[in-house]
């Protein structure tokens, strides 16, 4: 068994896990953070996308022990009913989501993009989402939603969004 400790959504989390435990599994099953989804389990679909030290990764392809001592952001750290991140707010306004299974990963991938590039072109948005599969929407409203989120004051002014403790 291995002790792991990481900062998840701004909160220190600890667990004792066998080496073969994935980051996704410890997030979902040990800590109850079930927003990140188990889709393909081989790194193709992106439903498990989280940020580790600010980089988007597939949580299904990382061992929890590899992430020991690092910072993780999941969809639970992005917003909630009381406050939506501008990406989530834009998705809601435009009805960008249908079944919603891919949405947590897509919101995280979009955040990773906007953090580096607050004013992406449509092509850059498409490239940023190449690792996130959506089988419902055809992506049109998702791409429009991300473009709209980039016009939100919190993003255009370069202010990192921190209300209610959210990223």
């Amino acid at each position, binding site marked *: 068994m291995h002790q792991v400790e990481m900062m998840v959504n701004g909160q220190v989390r600890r667990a004792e896990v066998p*080496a073969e435990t994935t980051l996704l599994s410890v997030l979902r099953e040990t800590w109850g953070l079930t927003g990140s989804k188990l889709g393909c389990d081989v790194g193709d679909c992106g439903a498990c996308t989280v940020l580790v030290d600010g980089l988007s*990764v*597939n949580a299904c392809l990382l*061992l929890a022990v590899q992430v020991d001592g690092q910072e993780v952001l999941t969809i639970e750290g992005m917003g909630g009913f009381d406050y939506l991140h501008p990406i989530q707010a834009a998705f809601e306004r435009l009805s960008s989501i249908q079944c919603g299974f891919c949405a947590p990963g897509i919101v995280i991938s979009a955040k*990773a993009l906007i953090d580096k590039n607050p004013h992406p072109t449509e092509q850059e948005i498409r490239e940023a989402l*190449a690792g996130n599969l959506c089988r419902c929407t055809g992506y049109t409203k998702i791409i429009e939603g991300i473009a709209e989120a980039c016009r939100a004051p919190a993003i255009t002014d370069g202010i990192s969004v921190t209300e209610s403790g959210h990223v």
Partner: protein
Amino acid sequence: MRSFEYLAPSSLNELLEVMGDRAPNFKLLAGGTDLLVDLKHGPSGPKLVMDLGAVPELKGIEETPLGLRIGAMVTHSQIQQSALIAEHAPAMMAAAATIGAVQTRNMGTIGGNLVTCVPSLDSGPVLVALDAQVTVAGVHGRRVLAITEFFVGPRQTALAPDELLVDILIPTAMLGRATAFRKFGLRKGQALALVNAAASIAVDNDRIVEARIALGAVAPTVIRATDGERVITGRSTDDVGALREAAAVAVTETRPIDDFRASAAYRRELVAVGTYRVLEEALALATRS
């Protein structure tokens, strides 16, 4: 996933010692984008997984007296963002950009990509076109190999069971060499190459004095099309027909297969088109500078 023992050595010496003791009953974990899939779904599991993430000797991109050194654990994203790569070997950035998706490029490493040694590996052709060398290390010492010697067959490298890939070197003479890369897949993102191609060209007094053509996914390993290279070596930089001739000859050096992604005939057509385009682009870069 089946259970395994996990170690994360903090130095190359410590790693090599364990490798010497435990070979071949371990797997090395680099970016994990292939290994984790194997650990979950592969036919048999290793007893020991050794994480290379804490080994400093495998990291970093730096200029050395011999050339540009790229640590095996450098990720594809790091290659895309490296000022040194942009200055000395920008075609590596073009190749890295075609690998997987953002998440896989943030995790996957150039060393891991080379060690998989699949015929379609996207890091391979540019490194062959740039005459790269690789350093491999084992408990008994180090060896330096040409990248073309490192690729032995499909999923088979020149590594002994107790050896690992430490770094890749682009020799000084090849830094800044005009180089181009193209990949043809069934779609733009997350696609395996049907064909990938790279070429490098050096020009002197309006003549092509050195050319290297590298092709992937059309033979058991990434190959050099040396007959095609000979066709253009010595030819005038204005001789556009020479590039077409070289591309046609390069096709004869490939052995593509028929599979569900594409027919061998279609792959040969892509080799002709791809080789011509990378030569044209490399020549344009060479004559501009």
